[in-house]
């Protein structure tokens, strides 16, 4: 006899399998989930924008004949020695400690080959990265781990870190597995402890103090170094205006897609805003202060392709910064290690337990055996190749829009595919002249 039709099993959209699994994990362990990387949720992003290219009223440049400039000068507002990069794509701050020494060296090698800068992280400057980075930005972080004036003087620029996109308002974490003897010594910490970096700077509070702190850093380095101020994307209009008022040469805004070495999942997914929503308010602040292009704007968080680079620059940024993509270029989450990722309970492409220090690719680890897997020369070459592709792609788009320099890209070159992206990027919805929030 036929069975009567039954209602098939149906998962709740609210209590979906991932949510249920997290509830069970939390109940079993009593500790929040910690992971690396940036947000994994679907967000309004550069994919929601398109370039219009040339048409009867717009004149393109010849792809292989006419020059499309890519260089960018950073820090000319106050620094005696501003830095000039060949491409407007920099390597974001990532610490020795979260990354192996080999990975830091590879980042320096790749960036130097491409004519751009790399950046230290929470934990101080290593000789490897200084030696292999032609332009090195030294981060000035709340923890001040490894901070010393000799390294300030041998840096090419200083980046005061107020926050990062993955966790605006949060301090760093480096769990005990990665506090090796060398990492511990650089940070003046006992080996093997779970290290909690401060979330606030220890000797200043608020924009008035920041202005005095910047003055001190300039005095310490005889006004030679460009000084960046980096914030996580949350209140980009006000943060940019306050950074400019405080005397910054460069403002860095990191969207919530930006990665972290280790942070609570709830923080990564629920604090901060996407980079797409942060660029126009920051540019507006610069324009209102008469500082657009005088104080440079670097944006980061989810930059993957030359199209992303071009879109960020068209919205008004002077340069972009990459972190996660750079690690992937080095070899992070490489399917060649699939069996080892499986052994860790994950799969290539989804591995994010960077804090555990067991990275099969040898990048987010302090294990000497794993770290030795990464050849810094080869990995550096891969990064340089990737940076070259990003640049060529951005140039291809810029030429199609008739621009002789990437900085000549402009919002007028863009349209949005969604109302959300149109509102955030302040460009028209494709096929219309409608920008949400603006009169027709």
């Amino acid at each position: 006899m036929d069975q009567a039709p039954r209602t098939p099993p149906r998962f709740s959209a609210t209590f979906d399998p991932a949510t249920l699994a997290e509830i069970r994990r939390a109940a079993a362990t009593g500790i929040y989930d910690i992971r690396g990387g940036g947000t994994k949720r679907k967000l309004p992003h550069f994919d929601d924008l398109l370039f219009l290219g040339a048409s009867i009223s717009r004149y393109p440049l010849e792809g292989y004949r006419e020059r499309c400039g890519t260089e960018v000068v950073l820090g000319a507002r106050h620094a005696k020695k501003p830095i000039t990069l060949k491409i407007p794509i920099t390597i974001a701050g990532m610490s020795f400690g979260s990354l192996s020494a080999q990975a830091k060296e590879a980042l320096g090698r790749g960036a130097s080959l491409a004519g751009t800068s790399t950046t230290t992280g929470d934990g101080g400057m290593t000789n490897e990265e200084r030696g292999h980075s032609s332009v090195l930005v030294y981060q000035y972080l709340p923890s001040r781990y490894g901070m010393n004036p000799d390294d300030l003087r041998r840096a090419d620029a200083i980046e005061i870190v107020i926050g990062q996109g993955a966790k605006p308002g949060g301090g760093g974490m480096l769990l005990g597995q990665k506090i090796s003897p060398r990492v511990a010594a650089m940070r003046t910490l006992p080996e093997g402890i779970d290290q909690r970096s401060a979330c606030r700077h220890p000797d200043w509070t608020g924009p008035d103090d920041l202005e005095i702190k910047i003055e001190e850093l300039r005095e310490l380095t005889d006004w030679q170094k460009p000084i960046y101020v980096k914030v996580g994307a949350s209140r980009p209009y006000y943060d940019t205006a306050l950074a400019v008022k405080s005397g910054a040469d460069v403002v860095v805004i990191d969207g919530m897609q930006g990665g972290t070495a280790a942070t609570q999942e709830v923080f990564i997914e629920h604090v901060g805003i996407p980079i797409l929503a942060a660029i126009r308010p920051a540019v507006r602040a610069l324009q209102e202060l008469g500082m657009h292009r005088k104080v440079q704007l670097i944006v980061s968080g989810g930059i993957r392709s030359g199209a992303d680079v071009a879109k960020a620059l068209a919205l008004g940024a002077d340069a972009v910064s990459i972190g996660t993509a750079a690690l992937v270029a080095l070899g992070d989450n490489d399917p060649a290690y699939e069996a080892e990722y499986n052994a860790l309970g994950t799969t290539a492409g989804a591995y994010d337990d960077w804090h555990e220090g067991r990275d099969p690719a040898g990048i987010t680890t302090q294990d000497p055996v794993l770290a030795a897997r990464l050849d810094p020369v080869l990995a550096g070459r891969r990064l340089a190749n990737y940076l070259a592709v990003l640049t060529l792609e951005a140039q291809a788009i810029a030429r199609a829009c008739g621009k002789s320099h990437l900085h000549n890209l402009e919002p007028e070159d863009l349209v949005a595919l969604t109302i959300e992206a149109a509102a955030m990027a302040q460009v028209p919805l494709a096929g219309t002249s409608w920008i949400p929030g603006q009169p027709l």
Partner: protein
Amino acid sequence: MSAPHSFDLAQHSVRELNAALHALAPSTNATGWLVQNPDGRHALAAGLDVPVTVEIAGHAGYYCAGMNQHATVIVHGSAGTGVAENMMSGRVHVQGDASQSAGATAHGGLLLIDGNASARCGISLKGADIVVKGSVGHMAAFMAQAGTLVVLGDAGDSLGDSIYEAHLYVRGRVASLGADCIEVPMTAADRAELQEKLQAAGLDGQVRPDEFRRYGSGRTLYHFHVDNAAAY
């Protein structure tokens, strides 16, 4: 010390002062400097890297002697926020009071404060010695990693909150201890260490190590554990 080179900040800028001090070679014979009319200016004598003595004839603003290396800086007055912040070596002597975050993140050298120090004195200390003849405000030695804080007077609330391996010695009353900061029995090695710090501060014979109590890390928060959640 040679006869002081006088530098009048009523006539010259802080930039000119620091540029002159930064231009000195380690072997300079211009080892004595007197800064007149400081009037609370910021970043005075910041970033020194030579064994000279700079005397500041008045009050200093923020970050006086910041990141000092090798030099001796004497403030004949009070100092603003972050005096001797991130000092690596040398000696900084504040003859008046010090504002917030005195000696923040300092790695080495000695910071001597004749008066009181405000909140967060020795925050994130990384190896320097701080001696305060008066009292310290709340959250002194917050997250202090290494080095010593010696307080002849009292300590405010939450002393040594989230401390790592710094050693704290307080002669007076402690309003309260911060998370994971505990009183530690004084050992002979502690007394010898404290005696050495007092001697370096010129206090030998004026106060005795056995007048102090020592505080340090309980090391219960060195690893994340659910049962510690309420401690933060």
